[in-house]
């Protein structure tokens, strides 16, 4: 799924940043969260639960810990409250 059309206002100052998900570059903009970048790029399942179910972001505000991903080598980071940074390397669905 491509980034959804007509979602960003023309008055916004948008600065693109380069980030990768499991080594593949995806589109991201300075100021958004990792969850927003992942969601816009169509990534839904982000990790495996204790019993092996696929799970994705849920509460979106740092409460539920469902959106844990590895960011720049640091495991168990909440994608929903982490802003993207240029050069960020994200790993999802690690087993």
């Amino acid at each position: 799924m491509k980034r959804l059309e007509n979602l960003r206002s023309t008055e916004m100052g948008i600065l693109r940043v380069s980030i990768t998900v499991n080594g593949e570059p995806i589109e991201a903009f300075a100021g958004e969260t990792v969850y927003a970048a992942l969601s816009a790029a169509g990534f839904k399942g982000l990790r495996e639960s204790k019993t092996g179910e696929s799970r994705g972001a849920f509460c979106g505000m740092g409460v539920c810990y469902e959106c844990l991903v590895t960011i720049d080598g640091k495991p168990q980071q909440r994608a929903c409250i982490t802003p993207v940074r240029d050069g960020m390397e994200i790993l999802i669905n690690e087993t």
Partner: protein
Amino acid sequence: MKPKPKVVVVGAGLSGLAAAGVLCGRGCDVVIVDEGLQPGGQYLKRPDPGLGRLPWNPRDSLSSLGLSLIEQIARQGVQCMSGAQVVGADGEGNLWVENGERRLVEMKAEAVLFATGARERFIPFDGWTLPGVISTGAAQLLLKTCGVLPAKRMVFAGCGPLPLTAAAETSAAGCRIRALIYQAPLFPAAKVFFQLATHPTKMVEAWKSMLRLVAAGAIIRPGTAMIEARGKDVLEHVVYGSLDQEGNVIPGSEKVIRTDCLAIGHGFAANIELPQAAGCRLSFDRDARGWIVDVDECMRTSLPGLYASGEITGVAGARKSFIEGKIAGHSIALDLGLQGGVEYRRRLRDLKRTREKELRFGKLINRISAPPVGLLHNIHDDTVICRCEDVTMGTIRSRMVDGMLTPGGIKRMTRCGMGLCQGRTCGPILHDLISLQADLTGPVPPFSARIPVKPMALSSLLDRAESSGIKG
């Protein structure tokens, strides 16, 4: 010269901001600690300045007040620590904070205000853990803080005002809302209807949202609830059905809708863990089915020097939180000797009256948002209740049948609530489930809260140990 007294405000939502706004002009040193990336909390949901002002941010009078407060306190030199979490507090004004750089900072304040807000609560159904099922708050945050729609096609489900508001907002931003699966019946019972009529502006807003959704092609289904979210690894279909008076799904009423995203919300639970761990007395809010921090009408908790305001003293919406923040600010100023009693009483008279009105509205909304008993009774045995530890309804049900009727007991026996979220998601669900059981004397107790109230990195603690000379 005497140093300025230090006041720490936990939470930069409307309540914390309102308190800081009162305090910063009165000769105290105010520090706000906030988990959010931007001050403003869950009502304002502000985007990063780098993204500019997104067209979907609220523009009502309360939002404008909040935005001007953020500017005002920044001008007056209030320090706001964003992206930080307070992991502990005690009754003496000590606070332990993991700051944005993930380092442990200790603070000591003459007065502490807890304005930690509320989180969403949920009624589980089969498949609510599938990727693609998100909270209504998550849908709003994606849109308002990042300008991203959760999907092109969505379904909203739940109760209370939020699913309706969030569906209308996402629809206005270009999302195709397929349906609103809404627990409350279309026409509330006559008594509730007349009580709601005493808050006409809020009712007009709700009807406007509903009409806009219908005009955009959404199906609104009052008196229904989610039965199942289906899909292989991600959400593909939702199944819902009509409810009878007791909340049981009427056989044959089930319907299936194809969707990429489902947003759910079933009301709110107060974030009481920090003041609870500090030892503040709690009280049980029957209408909101949850524990809140016990405060007097001046927002003082049971412990001297500790105050609480906003959703944690009773879930009743943004305006009540804002008013209580102001009251707390004035009370702190009075207790620190920075404001005279005459001025205090004059300012508080109107604030208290507005607060009473908002509390009455909150009570009403909480009452009509309560889940019908059947919905909880009918949760299937294989539905996950604790998402962190994958504890199912069946496991919990068998413990309840054995007579275990406290959240703490069920936690120890099943690991429900022992995961990273520390029971913040499953706690209110477990509370609802146990409350259904007969022969309970008094309200079901909350999970206990211990420091650190949020998971923190060991490295944060190690840094602290090294800097204070403790050798490993």
